[in-house]
């Protein structure tokens, strides 16, 4: 049963994307198809998570070829957990986008949006489920090609300028990835991750170190770690807000997942890389948040907080302990939900105010009190105010850092606390600029012919409901924090004993 379900999170969206192109003229059918597909993926991911947690990792060898030759799909606790969260987020953002599209009527050119969105979903699922390094490359490409189209959806000058940076940087990362795969194949003769993990144990130390660092750079570009992040705040804010929301929540986290998976499975106990990771974590947290402090545009400000908070996940990984990894996994789940919410709400604010500039907004709490609540909850959660999910995730990481007790770990703890306070300052500054003060005049839509309708008091119910649903999802993380941390700890336990993964794939 599980073996049948395992490939479906990849196959279903791809099939639906094909049909979606066929039905390009029937927008209502397209919408129904996308929503039904993503609902199915959420359900399947839930079943996979339940099975992975109770019966251990599920493995399917595609095409019936045994592990080192064929391509393996693996759903262990980490993969399945991230799959559930990402599928739920993809569904909510889709509803938000549909709400926006329906409300704005026939002016929207959404025919290409639905197929690309489904291909993006398939790529993300594939990246989480694959157990093969080359297949991971293909998954990244599937995901990225869809994202190239989505980020340049309007084809305006601004989108092309930002999209160019994004595509060139991503393509360069892909070239590096092919290089890394070539070197791994030359060293081990395999691209199956479980098989490579066994064979790399016998490789010389220098070779292991070089391969580990090249893969770190490759995935570091996708995850936007210091100093490879400068493409992100430039390219994300120009896309339509649902697209930015899903990119912010998921694409960088796929990079983080790839770092977690490869470093723990292929290069365990590599003290050198762990130290490098801790230093990078500190720099990513601090530099990212300092960038956020000086921004005037809400979307750019939030983009810098993405970069900054990637540092927390690296911090957990750099500790190389079960507790650190558990904190990193919980933090990833929290951050996917909260960062997506913030971008969705930023979209609602921009729609209402006609601008996302802090200087030109004000007094929104008098006009739209519900919007103020929707912004405040995830913003405080991002900063780590108890009892919201950000506080719990940070608490896990800080405790793991203090338990470690090393000099670098303590420095990272200090940096994490400072970043947390500065995040509160950054989101608080945006809060006071947008919601407090006198009510300012709405900025008129500077480009009324494009897809994006701004400066209107008419907020579609579906958009607000989808944003509220993700906010509620963020609050739910607090409610189920105990079981969720337990699950993260079990997933982290799997990561620190890579033998289990190898045993599951190579019986």
């Amino acid at each position, binding site marked *: 049963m599980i073996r049948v379900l395992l490939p479906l999170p990849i196959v279903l969206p791809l099939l639906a994307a094909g049909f979606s192109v066929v039905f390009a003229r029937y927008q209502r059918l397209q919408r129904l198809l996308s929503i039904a597909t993503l609902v199915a993926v959420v359900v399947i991911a839930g079943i996979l998570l339940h099975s992975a947690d109770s019966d251990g990792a599920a493995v399917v060898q595609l095409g019936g070829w045994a592990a080192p030759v064929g391509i393996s799909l693996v759903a262990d606790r980490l993969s399945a957990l991230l799959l559930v969260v990402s599928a739920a987020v993809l569904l909510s953002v889709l509803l938000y986008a549909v709400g926006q599209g329906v409300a704005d009527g026939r002016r929207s050119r959404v025919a290409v949006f639905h197929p690309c969105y489904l291909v993006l979903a398939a790529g993300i699922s594939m990246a989480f489920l694959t157990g093969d390094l080359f297949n991971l490359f*293909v998954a990244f*490409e599937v995901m990225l*090609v869809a994202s190239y189209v989505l980020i340049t959806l309007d084809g305006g000058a601004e989108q092309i300028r930002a999209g160019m940076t994004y*595509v*060139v940087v991503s393509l360069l990362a892909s*070239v590096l990835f*092919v290089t890394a*795969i070539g070197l791994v194949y030359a060293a081990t003769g395999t691209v199956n991750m479980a098989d490579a993990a066994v064979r790399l144990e016998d490789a010389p130390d220098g070779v292991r170190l070089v391969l580990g660092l090249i893969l770190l750079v490759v995935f570091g570009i996708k995850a936007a770690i210091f100093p490879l992040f400068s493409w992100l705040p*430039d390219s994300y804010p120009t896309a339509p807000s649902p697209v930015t929301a899903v990119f912010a929540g998921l694409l960088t986290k796929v990079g983080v997942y790839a770092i977690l998976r490869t470093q723990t499975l292929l290069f365990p106990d590599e003290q050198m890389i762990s130290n490098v990771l801790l230093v990078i974590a500190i720099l990513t947290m601090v530099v990212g948040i300092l960038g956020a402090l000086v921004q005037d545009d809400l979307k750019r400000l939030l983009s810098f907080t993405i970069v900054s908070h990637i540092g927390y996940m690296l911090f957990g990984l750099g500790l190389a302990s079960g507790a650190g990894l558990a904190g990193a996994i919980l933090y990833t789940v929290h951050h996917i939900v909260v960062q997506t919410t913030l971008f969705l709400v930023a979209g609602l604010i921009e729609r209402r105010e006609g601008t996302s500039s802090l200087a030109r907004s004000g007094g929104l709490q008098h006009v739209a009190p519900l919007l103020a609540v929707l912004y405040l909850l995830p913003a405080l959660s991002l900063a780590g105010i108890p009892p919201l999910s950000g506080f719990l995730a940070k608490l896990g990481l800080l405790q793991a850092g203090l338990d470690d007790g090393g000099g670098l770990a303590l420095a990272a703890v200090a940096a994490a606390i400072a970043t947390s306070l500065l995040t509160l300052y950054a989101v608080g500054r945006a809060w006071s600029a947008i919601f407090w003060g006198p009510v300012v005049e709405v900025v008129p839509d500077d480009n009324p012919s494009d897809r994006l309708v701004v400066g209107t008091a008419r907020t579609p119910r579906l958009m607000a409901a989808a944003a509220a649903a993700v906010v509620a999802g963020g609050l739910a993380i607090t409610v189920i924090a105990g079981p969720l941390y337990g699950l993260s700890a079990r997933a982290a336990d799997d990561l620190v004993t890579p033998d289990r993964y190898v045993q599951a794939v190579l019986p």
Partner: protein
Amino acid sequence: MTGNLTLALLIGVLYTVGTYLLLQRTLTRIVIGLGLLSHGANLLLLQAGGPPGLAPFTSKGNVGTAGVDTADPLPQAMVLTAIVITFGVTAFLLAMAYRSWVLTGDDEVQDDVEDTRVAKMRPEIAHHDVEDEL
């Protein structure tokens, strides 16, 4: 595993030239640079399969002796996939470069918005400093 020195040197040259072109300001050069870089990476992946041998599945006699004097088919399959992917993305990149040319009238990479803003602020700061000194 034995390598091929000529190919290794060629891969090095492709990476070097590709990186140089990628650092230029003209979009067409960047596209060509990325093409050369990906050729280099594909050749590297092909090299990782070891020296060329007989085609693995040509005659019945070869099947049982795979790995002895036959070529490794896996890197070849992977390189084919990588080539197709690069082809598609390069086509998209060219379309974007064309769109950029239509919109702006030249194919230079545009200045970064934030950098431009910072650069515009600089003379003001310098100006204030001068005033303070006076």
